[in-house]
Structure formats: structure tokens, C-alpha cells
């Protein structure tokens, strides 16, 4: 190899190395504004929406999953983020550790909403920025109806959420 050939090869290598990070970067999450609805009239129809990236692929599935009491009242609705193809036993990616207990910002519990969404533990506007997932969810409770099932328990009759999904830097 001549000196000229070596220099041209080195220059080409450097050029590729300089552009490689941007060429290999993950496609960005596409902005999405959507409305999630739950109604006790049809508790088995679970709301879900695909979250897509700029290359058109589905990156995540966002769903609203009911959690029942012994009399089949919906006590809590959980906003769940998963990779496509994962089943209902797979971890919720909104839980950064995968082992959290207790009410979280992605939970909507009837008892917590009984005095109004604005008085709930996490408020009516919630921002979820799960680590390392390159997206932010802004969730607004636009409508909620709960009713008592017994002296100290409640069930969700209706819940409407406005959800805005935007890309964020991981």
C-alpha cells in the first residue's frame, strides 16, 4: 500500500467513524396526543395505543389495565407501558425498578380519586419520564366518576385521560 492509498483509507475511516453515532442513533419517538377511556359498562374492553418511532416501527404499547376487587369492581386502573409482543405478566416499563409497591403516578385508584382528581395523591396532571426510555408522558385526568361500593371502598365507573407523548433525551 502506498502512502497516498494509506492516507485515503485513513481519511475514509475517520469520516465513517465521525458519522457513525448519528447514523446508528435510535429513531426518535413520534409525538402523540391521544385520549384513553375506561368505562365500567364495558370493563373487558381494554384501551391501548401503539407508540411509534420516526421510522414507522412500533416501539411500545401503552394500555390501561383494570385491577379488580373480590366482587369484580374495578378498584384501580394502571397505565402500563410494554414492548410490542409482551403479555400481561410482563413488567410495566413505567416502573423503573420493576418491583415497586404502593400507589404510583401511573395508578388511578378509585379511593384516591373519590374527593376529585385534583385532590388525588398525584394530582390531575402527572408527568412520567421513565429512565432510559427516551419518552415523556404527560397525563391529564379529564373526567373521572367513582362510586362507593361499601363504607370504605370505591369503584371506578369512568375514567378519561388526555395523554401527550413526546420524545426525551435518555
Amino acid at each position, binding site marked *: 500500500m502506498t502512502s497516498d492509498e494509506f492516507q485515503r483509507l485513513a481519511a475514509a475511516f475517520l469520516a465513517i467513524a465521525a458519522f457513525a453515532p448519528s447514523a446508528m442513533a435510535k429513531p426518535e419517538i413520534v409525538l402523540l396526543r391521544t385520549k384513553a377511556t375506561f368505562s365500567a359498562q364495558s370493563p373487558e374492553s381494554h384501551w391501548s395505543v401503539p407508540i411509534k418511532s420516526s421510522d414507522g416501527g412500533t416501539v411500545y404499547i401503552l394500555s390501561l389495565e383494570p*385491577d*379488580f*376487587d*373480590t*366482587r*369484580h369492581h374495578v*378498584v*384501580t386502573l*394502571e397505565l402500563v407501558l410494554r414492548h410490542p409482543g409482551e403479555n400481561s*405478566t*410482563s*413488567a*410495566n416499563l413505567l*416502573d*423503573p*425498578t*420493576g*418491583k*415497586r*409497591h*404502593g*400507589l*404510583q*403516578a401511573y*395508578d388511578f*385508584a*378509585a*379511593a*384516591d*380519586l*373519590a374527593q376529585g382528581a385534583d385532590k388525588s*395523591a*398525584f*394530582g390531575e396532571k402527572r408527568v412520567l419520564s421513565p429512565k432510559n426510555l427516551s419518552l415523556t408522558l404527560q397525563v391529564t385526568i379529564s373526567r373521572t366518576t367513582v362510586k362507593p361500593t361499601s363504607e*370504605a*371502598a*370505591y369503584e371506578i365507573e369512568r375514567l378519561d385521560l388526555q395523554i401527550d407523548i413526546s420524545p426525551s433525551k435518555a
Partner: protein
Amino acid sequence: MLPEGVNSSYYRARYYDQSAGRFISEDPIGFAGEQNFYSYSNNRVPDLDDPFGLCPQDKPCHCGCKKCHTVNMLVTGYDNSFRSTGKNPGDRGYGITTSGAKAEPGTIAAPRHIPFGTGMYVPDYGCGTVQDRGGRKTIAGTHIDVWFSTTKQADNWGVHRHVPVEVCDD
């Protein structure tokens, strides 16, 4: 009269051959029970109790429960600390369970297939009610978490395996 060399045990009403893993004398109730005179509680151990070999009866349940069944479970402890809940005192939702109820002694975190409000008797812990959830990967199958008011108590509980937990069917 039993044959010589049989390693047997007398269980109140009849003999059990430990090497064969079966009773070697008939159930004294005979045909009034089931067709197999050598079985125990219709082979539905540990749901049923038949100490006198006379009639399978449902075990008396603890915690005021009328009907229950026993499941061998993995039982661990948790508390309100950041490690268990991702929240510190003063944070939104601190001390509140997934069902919206306040965490207190007797609070149990169970997998989602066990409804909120399900009563349980956990030996060495006592009576409790399912009010909470944990991560889908950790609190799953037959793994439950029982709540303690301090991290020290939760750590002292440690990991209890094969605990015969009574699950209330009422």
C-alpha cells in the same frame, strides 16, 4: 395385624406406610366415604382435614373466614421505605397502597390474579387483606409480600418459603 418390616406410623385411626407413601389400613368409614379406602381426604390435601379417618371436613379457617383454601406461598416483607415503594416520607402517595387504602399492619401485596379485598391468614404474621401490588416480575405466582411498619421488621421477617397461607373464599 401389620406385616413385619413395614415402616409404619399410626395416625389416630389407621396405619400409614412411610416407604410406600400410602395408608395400609382401610379408612374406617368404608363405603360411606369414597371408593378408595386407602386415600386421605379424597386426596385433596391440604384443603381438607380428616384426623380420625371418618369424614373429610373443611378445615376451620382463621380470621373469621367461613370458607378457605390453603396455598403454599413464598412470603417476604416490605414497608413504606424508598426501597419498597420508590417514595420517601413527604412524597406524593407515600404510605398509600395500589388500591388507594392506607398501608397498615395486615396489608398484603399479592399478584394481580388475587383480587383486592381477599382475606388471608399467614402463619407467624397473622390476618391480612390484599390491598397492594408489587412489580409483575417479583410479586407473581405464589409470592406475596406482607407489610411492616419499619424496614427493620421487614428485614427481620426475611424470606419464608412454602408457607401454608389460608386464602379466604368468602
